[in-house]
């Protein structure tokens, strides 16, 4: 049993937001998915206030040992999430962590407040990789902005707040420190790295969204560097992710300071990756004393 922000989890392996859909999974693999849920907690895809269609296709590009996605955070909006998804997710046998994104502190506050009276939601992950309308940068790339965001949101929620940091920054540890100072209970990283792919036939961008985010084994060494930098800087627990494909990868993120490990892209290659990696992680722990 692992203690994380007051939650007690069966083990250290959870899913990365947007990389495993419990409801679609139950449709495809049957309801027993809930009984044998592959992760110690379920992190939802990012929810926004208003419904979003997401980006026009194509949304995917396979790169060297990685994947570039430009999904565009499609979701049916906060209202539908509360009315339809939460009841459907009542069958979950693991804690639910809801991932939300807003383009202003006020929007984020609204999302967080709306989840407050839902005991089913055990923690909230704040996706701050949202482009700042003014600068175009991720709002999460600015430590002061992050601290201010957390100071606004923190009083609105009694639930653990996990800040999902962006890797597209000069000093991710400084950003983590800002989140901690603002009252975050934990940080999670790394999100995808800004990337571009061109159409095979010509010079035009391949992705309907223009640019996208790189994930998978290609970024694992960058995730190790960022997680270890953050761990040296903050005291709050860390959810480490980025290119984890096996128990040894998970073990390495824990070695550099992560408390939990999230699996993203590898879920696409193996829907049961969570189960396998948790098992391999046990073995990796046994193999050598860190």
């Amino acid at each position, binding site marked *: 049993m692992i203690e994380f922000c007051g939650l007690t989890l069966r083990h250290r392996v959870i899913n990365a937001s947007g990389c495993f859909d419990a409801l679609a999974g139950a449709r*495809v693999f049957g309801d027993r998915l809930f009984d*044998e849920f592959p992760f110690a907690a379920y992190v939802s895809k990012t929810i926004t206030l208003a419904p979003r269609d*997401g980006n026009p*296709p194509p949304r*995917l590009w*396979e790169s060297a040992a990685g994947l570039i996605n430009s999904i565009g955070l499609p979701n049916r909006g906060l209202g539908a999430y509360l009315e339809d998804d939460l009841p459907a997710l009542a069958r979950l046998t693991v804690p639910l962590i809801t991932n939300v994104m807003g383009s202003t502190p006020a929007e984020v506050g609204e999302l967080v407040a709306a989840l407050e009276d839902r005991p089913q939601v055990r923690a909230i992950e704040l996706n701050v990789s949202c482009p700042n309308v003014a600068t175009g940068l991720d709002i999460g790339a600015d430590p002061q902005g992050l601290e201010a965001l957390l100071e606004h949101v923190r009083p609105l929620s009694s639930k653990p707040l996990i800040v999902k940091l962006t890797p597209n920054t000069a000093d991710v540890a400084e950003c983590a420190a800002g989140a901690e100072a603002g009252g975050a209970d934990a940080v999670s990283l790394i999100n995808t790295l800004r990337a571009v792919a061109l159409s095979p036939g010509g010079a035009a961008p391949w992705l309907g969204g223009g640019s996208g985010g790189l994930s998978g084994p290609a970024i694992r060494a960058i995730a190790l560097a960022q997680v270890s930098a953050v761990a040296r800087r903050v005291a709050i627990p860390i959810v480490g992710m980025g290119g984890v494909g096996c128990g040894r990868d998970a073990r390495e993120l824990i070695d550099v300071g992560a408390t939990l490990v999230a699996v993203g*892209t590898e879920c696409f*290659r193996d*829907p049961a990756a969570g189960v396998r990696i948790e098992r391999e992680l046990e073995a990796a722990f046994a193999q050598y004393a860190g």
Partner: protein
Amino acid sequence: MSAPFGRRSSVLLSRRVVGRYVVLGTADELAVAEPGQFYMLAAAERWGGGEGERPFLGRAVSVMRVGDRGLLEFLLEDVGPGTKRLCELEVGEGLILVGPFGHGFSVPEEPDTLLVGGGIGIAPLVAVQEAWGGRALLGFRDAGHAAGAGLFSEPTVATDDGSIGHHGAVTELLDRELAARPRPVYACGPPAMLAAVNERVRRHGVPSELALEAPMACGFGACYGCVVATVDGYRRVCVDGPVFNGAVLA
């Protein structure tokens, strides 16, 4: 019926070349796939290291034939590093199976349903014809690809270069059939062909089921990467399709 959870290791049981295509045979004891469904396939060893340091993800491949005791056949065309690796697999080499996935073709109301296939898109229609019959109208680039017609019973063939069968588009064969007797159409092929088929079935007001392709990362609804525009907005080809009623496509 729901798919087995997780990926399974299998081996290549048979391999044969059909013109420009390769037919791969393997077995999946755990599931019975329906016509129009697909698997995500990968080689167990050395999946990667090809053009652009790829492949990395599994590749969506339609079920072409479902036999007894879980026997499965797939039809592959080498169009890039993933299908190249799969086409080069040798009997006895390991294969990773995830699936079967997707919403397939429905049982036809009409025995003489028109099965319109283009190129590698003929694969799921082989399964349809073997399960329920139907009249196959097949379009190919040239004779090398048209060899795929041998997988059907009594097919009518069109080739772009006229080297075999009707010289022209398969939709011209479809026009004749629909003019002679309007009836349901099942189709799979390149986007342009499917658009042309959809235009015709709408004109003739006949029901249609079109099997689409889209770049896929997962195949089971997790990544939202495979969407297609429909009258109700974007839908995931892997879980809401790959087979769609032509009327819902935007």
